[in-house]
């Protein structure tokens, strides 16, 4: 079980801030593929992966990051702090 979190317009498009997902995905990219296959709103949210960033266990990561032992994955647009 992995906690998957969504922020900003990714959260709005998918329609929820967080969910627990039972997955055997090996990498973030695999997880994205699983999510896209799930429902249209996921497919739409992940359509352009270059517009998204990902954090694995609360640290910025790449989409090919492995998921072994990972507890939390978050998807969001580029940050706009400051």
């Amino acid at each position: 079980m992995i906690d998957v979190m969504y922020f900003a317009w990714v959260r709005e498009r998918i329609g929820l801030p967080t969910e627990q997902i039972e997955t055997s995905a090996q990498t973030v990219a695999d997880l994205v593929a699983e999510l896209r296959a799930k429902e249209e709103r996921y497919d739409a949210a992940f359509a352009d992966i270059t517009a998204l960033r990902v954090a694995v266990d609360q640290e910025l990561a790449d989409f090919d990051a492995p998921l072994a032992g990972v507890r939390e994955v978050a998807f969001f647009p580029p940050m706009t702090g400051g």
Partner: protein
Amino acid sequence: MDVRVQSEPFDAGALLNDFSAGHKDVGAIVSFTGIVRDVADGLRSMEIEHYPGMTTKAIETIAADAMARWELTDVLIIHRYGALTAGEQIMMVATASAHRSAAFEAADFLMDYLKSRAPFWKKETTEKSASWVAAKNDDEAALDRWS
């Protein structure tokens, strides 16, 4: 190092004075305060979303990078989240150093990294519409200045 992530307003002047107090080895203090600007259509509110589990850690990492890179005596970073209106202070950084250039450069560096590497997202609601503020290509390019 002092990092605060909060929804409440802060008193930049009082924080600057506290930050300055009691450093006899410091010659230079630079502060930056970011303020919500009004927009053409009239800003009703600026909502700042963040990633609670990650925010403080991410900012502390950025602050530690700055302290490793420049001779700094101290660093202060405050960033708000939640609903703000035009004229409200969003965030503040302050740097203290024996050297003026270190204090300036480190504050500039902190701002570049807070903009693109701390998990905050701004949504503007005007009288006409609501939209997420898009990151600028410039924001990412700005980081190259420091590599």
